[in-house]
């Protein structure tokens, strides 16, 4: 088992976890559980495939399980209803971005971060989250629009016109 390879990915796993989980303690708990799971399942990793994408897939499963255990898995609708409660301060301030991310439904936050922060290709995101690319795109679209609305302090979310 070559755990050294896994260790190399820790800084980027921590970056993603920090953005995903919000607080740094929870984020490192998430990374630790992910590492333990990855080490235990290391024999399942296909040599030659992208280990980073594989670890993101594991982190996704661990994160969803943690949220379920804490009964914090927010439903899409529930989060949407909370949009108006977000306190508005100066738009586009970085400290607000962290709070705005926390207001996004988990499934949109994951896609937004894997694409925007981790710069995974849409196909890699699709593989890591085990969802079709079309679903990746619709979550990305909704997540970006909602984030824009949250950062602008506007309560109503207007959807983009889909161009044909």
């Amino acid at each position, binding site marked *: 088992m070559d755990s050294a390879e896994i260790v190399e990915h820790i800084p980027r796993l921590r970056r993603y976890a920090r953005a995903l989980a919000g607080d740094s303690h929870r984020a490192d708990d998430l990374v630790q559980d992910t590492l333990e799971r990855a080490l235990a399942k290391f024999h399942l990793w296909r040599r030659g495939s992208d280990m980073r994408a594989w670890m993101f897939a594991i982190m996704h499963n661990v994160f969803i399980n943690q949220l379920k255990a804490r009964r914090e898995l927010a439903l899409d609708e529930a989060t949407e209803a909370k949009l108006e409660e977000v306190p508005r301060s100066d738009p586009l301030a970085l400290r607000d*971005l962290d709070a705005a991310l926390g207001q996004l439904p988990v499934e949109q936050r994951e896609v937004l971060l894997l694409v*925007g922060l981790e710069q995974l290709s849409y196909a890699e995101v699709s593989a890591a989250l085990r969802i079709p690319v079309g679903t990746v795109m619709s979550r990305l679209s909704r997540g970006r629009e909602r984030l824009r609305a949250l950062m602008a302090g506007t309560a109503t979310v207007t959807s983009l016109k889909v161009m044909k």
Partner: protein
Amino acid sequence: MSNLTETDLHAYADGQLDDVRRVQVDAHLAHDSAATESVRVWREQNEALRALYNPVLNEPVPQRLLAARAPRRRWPNYALAAGLMGLAFGLGWMVHA
């Protein structure tokens, strides 16, 4: 361009288009200010995310993460084999004695 989709715009903002498609989107954006604005906002979001979270990459990794280990298998095969050999040896010794 008639067949531009929102997916193309996202892929354009994320730098995931091939050269041919990118040039096509460029041409489209020249006369579509709403699409241009969307792309600008999305890129700004990406940059803001990296600006906010990239510093995590330079933090020292907590020791507890470096010490993360796979949960031990209850009885690895070699340990089981060694145990059985020891048992056999011990029994043999007792019988002999």
